[in-house]
């Protein structure tokens, strides 16, 4: 029913090499893009959210918010979890902003600064 691409192999590779965030993000992006285009919009449940989470971990907040929103819109069953994720993303963004204003100059790392 859905355009899965190599979703299961991507997750498997992610669990095999959890530190390789960049490659994981790239693969998920490709699966999402293909599902939306050549897959005729048959985006499988959970895929937008997994992509959004990878974006969030990479510090790409604005995009993460968009894709958590897409999951919620396409799958109403996901609403409770997506609202939770959107709150988490916004909270972390606020923490990051308050840190940037305190330490004038360098931008913080995506994972957040440790003191």
């Amino acid at each position: 029913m859905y355009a899965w691409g190599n979703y299961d192999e991507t997750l498997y590779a992610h669990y095999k090499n959890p530190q390789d965030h960049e490659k994981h993000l790239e693969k998920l992006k490709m699966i999402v893009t293909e599902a939306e285009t050549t897959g005729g919009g048959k985006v499988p449940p959970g895929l937008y959210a997994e992509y959004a989470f990878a974006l969030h971990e990479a510090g790409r907040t604005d995009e993460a918010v968009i894709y958590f929103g897409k999951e919620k819109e396409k799958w109403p069953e996901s609403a409770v979890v997506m609202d939770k994720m959107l709150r988490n993303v916004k909270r972390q963004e606020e923490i990051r902003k308050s840190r940037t204003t305190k330490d004038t100059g360098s931008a913080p790392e995506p994972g957040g600064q440790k003191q």
Partner: protein
Amino acid sequence: MSRKPVAVFVSILALLAVSGCATAPKKDFTAFQSENPRSVLVIPAVNKSVEVNAADYFLSTLSMPLAERGYYVFPVDVVKHLLENDGLADSAMVHGADTMKLCNLFGADSVLYVSIERWDAHYLVLTTQVTVAFDYTIKGCKTGDILWNHKQVMVYSPQNQGGGGGIGTLVAMAISAAMTKAAPNYMPLARQANGMAFKYPEGPGFPAGPYHPDHLKDPATSR
């Protein structure tokens, strides 16, 4: 010309008869149908095997067969992180937690619990025998009751090849190719086990979900 459709029909009948004989005893779907879940929360499996990474690897295999059967499946990696953030990094703790609490935390209609009973390879003189075994339980979020339970064992050894035909042979070939490497690749076997558990008509009967055209008029449940 006119004989061909009849021949095809007869062979379909024969196939139905054969597969009918081979299927497991009918399951009771009363509880499942009365809860009629739209979504399945897949939580990390409890791992009883000696392979420490088996639960993580296995987690990557469940979304596809469940979603293709018509359910909304919560994003497994997001769920895993949320559970860890809530202090539930140990899967035994998650499995021991109150089902209703998990349901409320995620807004789920049902929860899939899997126990990995086996995930091992035995090195024999001339060959390697690989076994995976899973115990699947789905609990409903309206009552917390068990809606569905199934145990699936899959064994691969080169001698098994050619017996099943069709998908079985293809999978056997894929595993055989994987076997030529130093470490056995369990993934095709694990995926095949899930396929056996959740697919219709291959499996023991797993009701179709709301996104499947067979939802509520399902031959899998009225067989």
